[in-house]
């Protein structure tokens, strides 16, 4: 739970901030049967984040969203985990979701065991000098995330030149598009915050 004196984080970071909701989260004590089921609250598992408690206001969507999210980011085959994270990071930067970018940049660095790519992306955005493959993936994610999408045939050609097959391109579209969704919840319904002690 974030403190009221927490400062809003405005710069890209891999150090995942707290999240302060702009609407009141569902109170677990007053939650409906359907909400408790969607939240998977059991007597032994009562820890639910403010973010998920906010989303519990729309319980029917929350119930389908979680398995869909996990499927797109983690299902076997197709695009690598790190490259799906790159799609998520691209969307989050276009939509300025500092929180989402932090979570997924830190995951990218963890998977790759390197902070090089996300350091470059946070410093230079669309102008970051990346490998041919990462550069095609990141550029596509940035353009698909615009409203309306600005991705065009030249971006698709770059993905293919970089060696992505149809299944990998589909996974990139899915992970990037998914963050068009996640960003519009996280960035719209709350603030990324940091308390004085770094928490």
């Amino acid at each position, binding site marked *: 739970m974030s403190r009221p004196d927490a400062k809003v984080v405005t710069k890209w970071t891999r150090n995942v901030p707290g999240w302060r909701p*702009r*609407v*009141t989260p569902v109170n677990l004590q007053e939650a409906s049967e359907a909400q408790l089921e969607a939240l998977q609250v059991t007597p032994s598992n009562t820890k639910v984040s403010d973010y998920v408690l*906010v*989303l519990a*206001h*729309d*319980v*029917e*969507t929350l*119930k*389908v*969203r979680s*398995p*869909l999210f996990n*499927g*797109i980011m983690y*299902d076997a*085959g*197709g695009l690598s985990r790190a490259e799906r994270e790159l799609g998520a990071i691209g969307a989050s930067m*276009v*939509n*300025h979701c500092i929180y989402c970018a932090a979570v997924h940049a830190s995951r990218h660095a963890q998977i790759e065991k390197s902070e090089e790519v996300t350091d470059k992306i946070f410093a230079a955005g669309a102008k970051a000098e990346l490998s041919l493959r990462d550069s095609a993936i990141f550029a596509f994610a940035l353009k*698909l*995330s615009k*409203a*309306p*999408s600005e*991705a*065009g*045939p030249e*971006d*698709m*050609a770059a993905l*293919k030149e970089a060696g992505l097959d*149809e*299944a990998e*391109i*589909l*996974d990139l*579209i*899915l992970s*990037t*598009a*998914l963050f*068009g*969704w*996640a*960003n*519009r*919840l996280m*960035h*719209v*319904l709350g*603030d990324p915050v940091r308390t004085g002690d770094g928490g």
Partner: protein
Amino acid sequence: MSGFQDTTAFTMGGVAADSAIGAAVEGRAKIFEMTQAAEDAVLAPAEAGGLSHDLRAALAARIARLNGEADLAERYAGRIGGDAALADPANDGTAQDMGAVVAFMDKVAGRTAEVRAEDVETLKSAGIGDADIVRLAELNAFLAYQIRLIAGLRLMGETQ
């Protein structure tokens, strides 16, 4: 739950079932089916709160139009039972007493990066409750996803 070939994303994305793209989609059939379940949850939930199914369909058509997705907009507009005025992005919603909701939805859909705490406060001042604010955000957010999935699939087909 429908099969992946009956989903809005598959149909609107113009994917040919017997193509390499069709095969890639089949490999992610479960995800396409869950995407359709999510469409049902944001467009026509059993518990609609303060947002009627008609209003949801009108806002969905509006957001599709804002993104240049005319066919998808038509599809959602076809679900509006009553007044379709809000489906037109040129209408600011004032005449329907929906100005705050429309302004919020347009900004979240098209200028996401610029959304601030004040935008949520404006909705609250207009009498929109917390649960309905979350429902509006979920509707908008789902459409952002579905619209980009469709745009991406179409682009794959065009460049095959």
